[in-house]
């Protein structure tokens, strides 16, 4: 799993591609924890190239959201419809703000 991290003035952006499932969710968790361990709690997750998220992935994002709030926030960008629908269907969509483009998400911090 390739994970790219970019630091901006007020937030950190993370990007990966493909699937997030039980085989690699902990790699994503580690990358996100590296960010929060530096005291950076404003995180933009660019999901434009992510095409599948299993519950193992959602728990990683929920866990990081708990760490980030209330001093910061993890926001999601360009979430594919199927992924977003599945999250909303189980009532967990409300835990994340979503954006349609990276520029707006980064600019909002």
């Amino acid at each position: 799993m390739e994970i790219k991290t970019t630091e901006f003035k007020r937030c950190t952006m993370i990007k990966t591609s493909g699937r997030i499932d039980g085989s690699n969710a902990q790699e994503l968790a580690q990358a996100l924890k590296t960010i929060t361990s530096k005291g950076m709690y404003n995180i933009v997750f660019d999901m434009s190239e992510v095409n599948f998220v299993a519950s193992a992935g959602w728990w990683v994002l929920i866990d990081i959201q708990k760490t980030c709030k209330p001093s910061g926030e993890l926001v999601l960008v360009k979430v594919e419809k199927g992924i977003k629908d599945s999250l909303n269907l189980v009532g967990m969509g409300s835990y994340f703000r979503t954006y349609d483009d990276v520029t707006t998400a980064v600019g909002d911090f």
Partner: protein
Amino acid sequence: MGTKRFSCSLQNLEEICDYVTHCADEAGLSESEVYAVQLAVDEASTNIMEHGYGRECPERIDITCEILEDGLKVVIYDDAQPFTPEGVPEPETNVPLEDLKPRGLGLFLIHKMMDEVKYEPTADRGNTLTMIKHHAR
């Protein structure tokens, strides 16, 4: 469409997903219905590997796809300990973020994603999970 056997490794989840995606496409399911099947089968396979067998092991997971007149039937067979879904607590959703506990989401998703879900644990060894997704149209 026959049965395909996968060894019990989380690294095989993508291959399992590819197989059921092929089945769902053949069955003529829509894009969102295909995603629902992918997610349900991924969650079920992950549960078998992590909770049924207990992580990586040489055991089998057999997946059968059957195209129905109005959708797709997927049956997953394992040799793990009998599983009783009634014993799994439902995840608490719509609660404050800090109260959210990581449990039961996989099974909950399976039921939400599929139209019919049936677990048949056998008395001695193994489980059969039958899931059906109907066309919306």
